[in-house]
């Protein structure tokens, strides 16, 4: 009788010990030290706030679209849809755009002309780098040597010649047009490009970047090619 009691106590104590150890393990999670200082936290906060406000404005825009759809009766539904299609076309870069912007000219550097170095085309890497620099700014519309640059556009080497959207770019000099949402945005972009090290990268390739002053009205024509729709499918009616 005594022996069984001891065995039972042993078993129960084993369970108690195990539970206590697990609880200890759970509470003993290594503390991750927060080593950010106040400015790092503020920076994070400001970026979060920015994304918050962007999301809010997006929601507002979508709400407006829904409201438009709801307020229109059936006869005008077609019109509302065509407005939306127009807006989407504009977003996709298929419409002509007029707005404040700057013209950037890529030219062979004075030294390369003086030394008689043969002028080669701009490399796709350099052009991609330039586009990436521009993409720090939101809502810009870009045209490279007369080719509209959209989200679907490609910059690549085709038989040794750099091409945008599959069309060759001329050897420098050629121009690029950048339209910003407002004139002050254009000024910001102008200041940014003037101070950017991207100019040095161009200079290494024997090019200079001539950044024109912001102008009030610049026109960029839309992308005329058709979109290839690979992923979206039309839903059959009645579903």
């Amino acid at each position, binding site marked *: 009788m*005594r*022996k*069984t*009691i*001891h*065995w*039972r*106590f*042993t*078993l*129960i*104590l*084993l*369970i*108690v*010990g*195990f*539970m*206590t*150890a*697990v*609880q*200890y*393990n*759970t*509470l003993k*999670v290594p503390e991750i030290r927060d080593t950010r200082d106040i400015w790092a936290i503020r920076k994070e906060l400001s970026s979060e706030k920015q994304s918050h406000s962007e999301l809010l404005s997006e929601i507002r825009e979508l709400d407006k679209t829904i409201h438009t759809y709801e307020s229109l009766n059936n006869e005008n539904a077609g019109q509302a849809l065509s407005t939306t299609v127009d807006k989407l076309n504009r977003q996709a870069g298929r419409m002509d755009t007029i707005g404040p912007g700057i013209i950037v000219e890529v030219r062979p550097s004075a030294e390369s002309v003086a030394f008689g170095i043969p002028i080669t085309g701009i490399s796709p890497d350099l052009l991609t780098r330039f586009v990436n620099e521009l993409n720090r700014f939101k809502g810009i519309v870009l045209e490279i040597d007369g080719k509209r640059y959209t989200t679907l556009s490609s910059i690549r080497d085709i038989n040794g010649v750099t091409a945008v959207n599959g069309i060759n770019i001329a050897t420098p000099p050629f121009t690029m047009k950048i339209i910003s949402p407002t004139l002050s945005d254009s000024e910001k972009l102008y200041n940014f490009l003037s101070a950017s090290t991207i100019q040095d990268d161009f200079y290494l390739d024997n090019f200079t970047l001539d950044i024109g002053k912001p102008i009030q009205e610049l026109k960029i024509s839309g992308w005329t090619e058709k979109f290839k729709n690979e992923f979206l499918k039309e839903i059959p009616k009645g579903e």
Partner: protein
Amino acid sequence: MTMWLPLLGLVLGISLGLVSDLQIPQVYGNYLSIAVLAALDTLFGGIRAHLQQVYDDKVFVSGFFFNIALAAALAFLGVHLGVDLYLAAVFAFGVRLFQNIAVIRRILLAKWTDREKKLNTNVPERKDLS
């Protein structure tokens, strides 16, 4: 010898838990802590009953598991009702734990004083003999 067996069980359980490095999510930490408390309460209750010669196997084992389950259920209900009901369990188990330990202490003290008395009564007898 068998006296040390339960202690060995405790040490084995603790080392098993530490070695396995098992962790439960923070959310369930409350449940486990209250379960540990319930287990301790039952354990001391068992020791007390054993010392008072009223120990019953079935009561002890069923009480152990039932108390744990009840405590966890109470905590669960508390979470869903928005009332810290687990505090009730903590209070109840805490009070009982103290009472049980107090009773154990008294019984052990009584046993000890008994033995002392016996020794004291025995010593003069021996003196008389010598």
